[in-house]
């Protein structure tokens, strides 16, 4: 249904067309609500007769739950419902479903939202209560008696792979690997990607570098904690309001866990206060629904920040081994990596994605990546922006930088010499479609930042990052109002400006003013299915759906005009917001505007609606290259990022400000990952820094302005050339900063974060001090 005239040419600069709305910096339609405090987020809904729900969580990293006695809590005045594992039916084994960039196993999910046989990490939910106020709910939690048998635990992924390690899931079988019968393991999966023969490739190399790296789990650290309001009625129907990246996906999860027909649940997404992947799964929502089902009253639940850190997210920490060979003239001959990712207490780390992306910015004849998904006694990981890729590419891009240095080549020229282009076989199998890797590298090389001299003592680093981007199931509807204004109904949660970008494409297609399009996110009853907001997919897939809905609407508008004029519809065209008669009819017939057709729609056939539902394919992969300058305080080990430039291929920037915002936000999250953020556990497996004071995300005074360059190599499968932009920006920063530190200090760091104590110890060690770098 898309207009083939709008299919861009892929000439490297978007499609080169002048648009009225696409490519402008219009004020977002949800903006006023967000600067005035009106916008309703997860915890902002109050319903009559609403209860407060709270969760009792495991104080142990690993323990059998012998018994749970809730009788005293239930007897407390003001307590309306108490739930435990007994309130959820078990789910069948082996039912794994793809969901966005991760996979869902309901047998694991039912255990993650409420512990069954064992508590598998500190913070694992054990029971929940609903009471008339927060004080009584807290008192009720203190009255629940849990008989735990504490078990040995394991936190480190390498230790978890050793024989004799505490076993987290006794019935776990390793996928993709031989396993002797009866043997127990924490290795959930082995994956391997690549082509050629790395041994042959290394034999051709003049220089081979082999390094090991570690990264720590980092949390998505959205500012809004998880929150929801659930309301179940006596006849088994329900409504759910929640902060989520995907209300259709949440509906499916909750219906499955509660044994409800999916359509019995009506789910409305609140405004979302950040997600970054972490709000693609459910935690509180099934509990709130189960409590509401028992109490037959609405139940509101909101996590504390401490609960967010202990029980949700993060992404994996990892142990990484990388080996790269190259010739003296800068051609990579072989690349090899082994990636060991922590999954948390249930399988599902993004190691496969990491293994696929690890060497994607290179065209290679001999490449192999092997990945392991490893269980440890930590919260189950959740998606975090380009899940898996930043971890792997941190290690590979560090080694690429080092090898370029050894052979004496500029690191961007080295990447350019080995860069993939359309038709290159990717390191994980498929041939690349139209991509902008080379264009991005060239723009970085030619940028003033890269060309400018460094100040004394500073270092400069670069790194390239890759992410696939995805499409997926999407629906959109345009409802024409009687005055010619249009309601755009979307089912994709807006995490950072997609109501703006999707409205702009609707206005562009229809040829009407942007302020005549009012976008809103419908509840799950308003549209067909919509996959969640993730995979940088909404402006891509949502754009195709909206353009399709607009073309559907235009088709009806042309029909009505043809009827009005009594001419064949083939002799009507739509341009600049009006129907025009063509082929000789032009002289007698004045064009009919959208307003005129709308005013008379009752006479010409009734309500006019444009709708489109798709499973969008052909997402455009994206590459980004970051350039960063650092200064190091040699007395404290504190690293200051003094200048930062993000160069990334957007395909086409529908709203450049929000594209820049994605680049800048991803870069700063990456700065936190590189320099500060980590989970710190005590010897009992308890998280020691479950708050923003000790888990330190970058603050305003930590970072400089983030320069951006939007490269536009159009994605030919999208009507405006869009690629996803949200995830790739977090892939390069860790390696870019590590490479800059190596340039500044002559010290190569192989462990994240490069926090002041670690940097200071490395400086002292390099200066011959007895203290050594960790």
């Amino acid at each position: 249904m898309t207009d083939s005239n709008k299919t861009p040419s892929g000439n490297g600069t978007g499609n080169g067309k002048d648009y009225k709305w696409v490519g402008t910096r219009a004020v977002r339609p949800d903006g006023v609500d967000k600067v005035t405090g009106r916008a309703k987020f997860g915890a902002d809904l109050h319903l009559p007769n609403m209860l407060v729900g709270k969760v009792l969580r495991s104080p142990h990293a690993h323990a059998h739950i012998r018994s749970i006695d809730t009788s005293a809590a239930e007897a407390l005045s003001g307590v309306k419902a108490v739930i435990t594992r007994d309130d959820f039916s078990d789910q069948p084994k082996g039912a794994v479903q793809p969901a966005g960039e991760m996979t869902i196993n309901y047998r694991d999910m039912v255990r993650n939202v409420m512990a069954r046989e064992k508590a598998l990490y500190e913070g694992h939910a054990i029971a929940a209560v609903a009471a008339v106020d927060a004080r009584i709910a807290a008192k009720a939690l203190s009255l629940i008696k849990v008989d735990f048998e504490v078990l040995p635990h394991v936190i480190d992924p390498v230790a978890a792979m050793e024989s004799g390690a505490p076993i987290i899931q006794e019935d776990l079988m390793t996928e993709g690997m031989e396993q002797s019968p009866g043997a127990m393991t924490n290795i959930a999966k082995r994956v391997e990607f690549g082509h050629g023969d790395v041994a042959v490739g290394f034999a051709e190399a003049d220089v081979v570098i082999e390094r090991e790296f570690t990264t720590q789990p980092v949390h998505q650290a959205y500012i809004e904690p998880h929150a929801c309001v659930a309301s179940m009625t006596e006849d088994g129907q329900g409504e759910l309001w929640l902060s989520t990246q995907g209300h259709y996906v949440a509906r499916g999860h909750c219906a499955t866990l509660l044994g409800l027909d999916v359509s019995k649940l009506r789910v409305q997404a609140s405004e979302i206060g950040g997600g970054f992947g972490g709000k693609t799964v459910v935690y509180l929502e099934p509990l709130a629904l189960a409590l509401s089902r028992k109490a037959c009253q609405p139940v509101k639940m909101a996590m504390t920040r401490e609960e967010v850190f202990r029980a949700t997210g993060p992404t994996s920490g990892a142990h990484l081994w990388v080996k790269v060979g190259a010739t003296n003239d800068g051609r990579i001959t072989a690349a090899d990596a082994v990636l060991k990712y922590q999954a948390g207490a249930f399988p599902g780390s993004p190691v496969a994605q990491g293994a696929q992306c690890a060497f994607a910015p290179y065209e290679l004849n001999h490449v192999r990546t092997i990945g392991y998904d490893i269980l440890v006694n930590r919260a189950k990981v959740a998606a975090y922006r380009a899940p898996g890729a930043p971890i792997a590419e941190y290690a590979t891009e560090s080694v690429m930088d080092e090898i370029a240095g050894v052979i004496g080549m500029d690191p961007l020229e080295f990447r350019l010499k080995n860069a993939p282009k359309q038709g290159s076989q990717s390191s994980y199998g498929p041939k690349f479609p139209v991509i902008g890797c080379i264009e991005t590298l060239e723009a970085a090389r030619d940028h003033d930042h890269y060309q400018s001299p460094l100040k004394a003592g500073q270092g400069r680093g670069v790194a390239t990052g890759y992410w696939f981007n995805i499409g997926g199931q999407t629906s959109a509807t345009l409802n024409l109002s009687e005055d010619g204004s249009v309601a755009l109904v979307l089912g994709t949660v807006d995490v950072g400006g997609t109501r703006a970008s999707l409205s702009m494409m609707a206005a562009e297609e229809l040829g009407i003013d942007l302020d005549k399009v009012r976008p809103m996110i419908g509840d799950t009853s308003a549209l067909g299915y919509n996959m969640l907001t993730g995979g940088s997919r909404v402006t891509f897939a949502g754009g195709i759906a909206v353009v399709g809905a607009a073309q559907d609407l235009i088709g009806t508008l042309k029909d009505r005009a043809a009827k009005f004029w009594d001419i064949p519809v083939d002799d009507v065209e739509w341009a600049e917001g009006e129907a025009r008669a063509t082929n000789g009819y032009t002289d007698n017939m004045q064009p009919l505007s959208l307003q005129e057709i709308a005013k008379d729609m009752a006479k010409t056939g009734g309500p006019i609606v444009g709708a489109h539902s798709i499973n969008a394919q052909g997402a455009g992969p994206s590459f980004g290259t970051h350039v960063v300058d650092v200064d190091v305080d040699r007395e404290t080990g504190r690293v200051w990022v003094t200048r930062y430039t993000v160069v990334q291929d957007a395909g086409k920037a529908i709203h450049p400000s929000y594209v820049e915002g994605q680049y800048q936000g991803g870069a700063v999250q990456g700065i936190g990952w590189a320099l500060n953020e980590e989970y710190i556990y005590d010897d009992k497996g308890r998280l020691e820094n479950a708050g923003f004071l000790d888990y330190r995300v970058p603050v305003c005074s930590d970072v400089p302005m983030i320069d951006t360059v939007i490269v536009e190599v159009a994605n030919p499968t999208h009507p405006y050339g869009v690629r996803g932009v949200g995830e790739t920006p977090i892939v390069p920063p860790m390696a870019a900063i590590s490479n800059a530190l190596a340039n500044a200090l002559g010290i190569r760091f192989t462990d994240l974060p490069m926090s002041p104590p670690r940097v200071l110890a490395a400086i002292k060690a390099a200066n011959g001090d007895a203290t050594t770098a960790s």
Partner: protein
Amino acid sequence: MAKYHITTRINGDDVEFLCAPEQTLLDVLRDDLRLTGSKEGCASGDCGACSVTIDGRLVCSCLVLAAEVGGQEIETIEGMADGDRLHPLQQKFLDFAALQCGVCTPGFLIAAKALLDRNSNPSETEVRYWLAGNLCRCTGYDKIVRAVLDTAADMRD
């Protein structure tokens, strides 16, 4: 447990409420007065999403007990616009796309207004340190800092 009876002013209006001794100002604003523009991001004074001013002083309302605010002048995000006219900072945040998810935005606006009330010509460094108590995980701060600096320049003209 007996509740405290508090009389105070919020956004220029006289307000009375009853509160428990452990309730914070943020709890009362959100749960009792339904002024949900102030957000709870941490409840420990680390994120600034609950920023309000009390007698012109910038505070995290999660760190103030509701029982303490009797007789004071509280300003929240709900009182920032003047009728149908947005405050220049609010308008500039929209024009500069200085928000993505928007959950930190009320806190940033309150904090930025408190800065400009004191310093009409802050440097970038002064803006960055003043706003260091407000966490934003979406924007990387760039567009927020530019919006505040540009508002200050406009307001000086």
